[in-house]
């Protein structure tokens, strides 16, 4: 499942839906990214996607993760539009037979989403707004998988 949404979402409901009826999976790892207030310096985060293209690009990488880590399944939900501090921005769940594969695939997908997925992110704060690009750490994290 790959989905973009403009509305706030419920990570717990997604985790339960994702885990349900799995009698051979063994391991479900999740990551929830939450908008940070940055001690008041960010009041709203704004995420833009390229509808159609963004889902297709994520799908391409998710299929690569499925093969590389032998995933049984994955779910990726990403907020777009304006997001308040404390709200979830992204939710990734991975299911595998054993925990190592589930953890690594979840980590891999998040590194991809942070540094290479077609999203553009703007921080709005009391001092105005600024576009955010991947940090050196994001690029180094991504390069671990090459």
């Amino acid at each position, binding site marked *: 499942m790959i989905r973009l949404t403009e509305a706030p979402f419920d990570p717990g409901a997604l985790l339960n839906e994702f885990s349900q009826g799995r009698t051979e999976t063994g391991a479900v790892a999740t990551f929830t*990214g939450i908008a940070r207030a940055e001690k008041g310096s960010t009041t709203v985060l704004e*995420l*833009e996607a*390229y509808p*159609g*293209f963004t889902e*297709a690009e994520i799908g391409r990488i998710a299929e690569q993760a499925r093969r590389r880590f032998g995933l049984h399944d994955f779910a990726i939900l*990403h907020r777009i539009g304006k997001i308040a501090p404390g709200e979830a*921005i*992204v939710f990734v769940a991975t299911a595998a037979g054993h925990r190592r594969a589930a953890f690594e695939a979840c980590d891999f997908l*998040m590194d991809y*989403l*942070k*540094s*290479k*997925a*077609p*999203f*553009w*992110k*703007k921080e709005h704060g009391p001092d105005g707004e600024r*576009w*955010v*690009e*991947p940090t050196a750490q*994001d690029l180094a994290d991504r390069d671990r998988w090459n």
Partner: protein
Amino acid sequence: MARVLLFGRFRDLAGWREREIAAGSLSDLRALLAAGDAELAEALEGKGVQVAVDQAIVKGDMALSASAEVAFLPPMSGG
């Protein structure tokens, strides 16, 4: 007429998000954009910028069909 889409900081820089522009190739399109907005055209050549034609990333120049969708994509950052 190519449908030209600007994302992220390009949209703020240009002041528009989507335009119809008649251009036979990507290089023609870049020249037309540069004639109207030199600052935007320079930003579109920046490091890490990608171009998608009909939702596929392309490198270098290419001919554009009459109904092409051309998107200029700043460095990406989700999550």
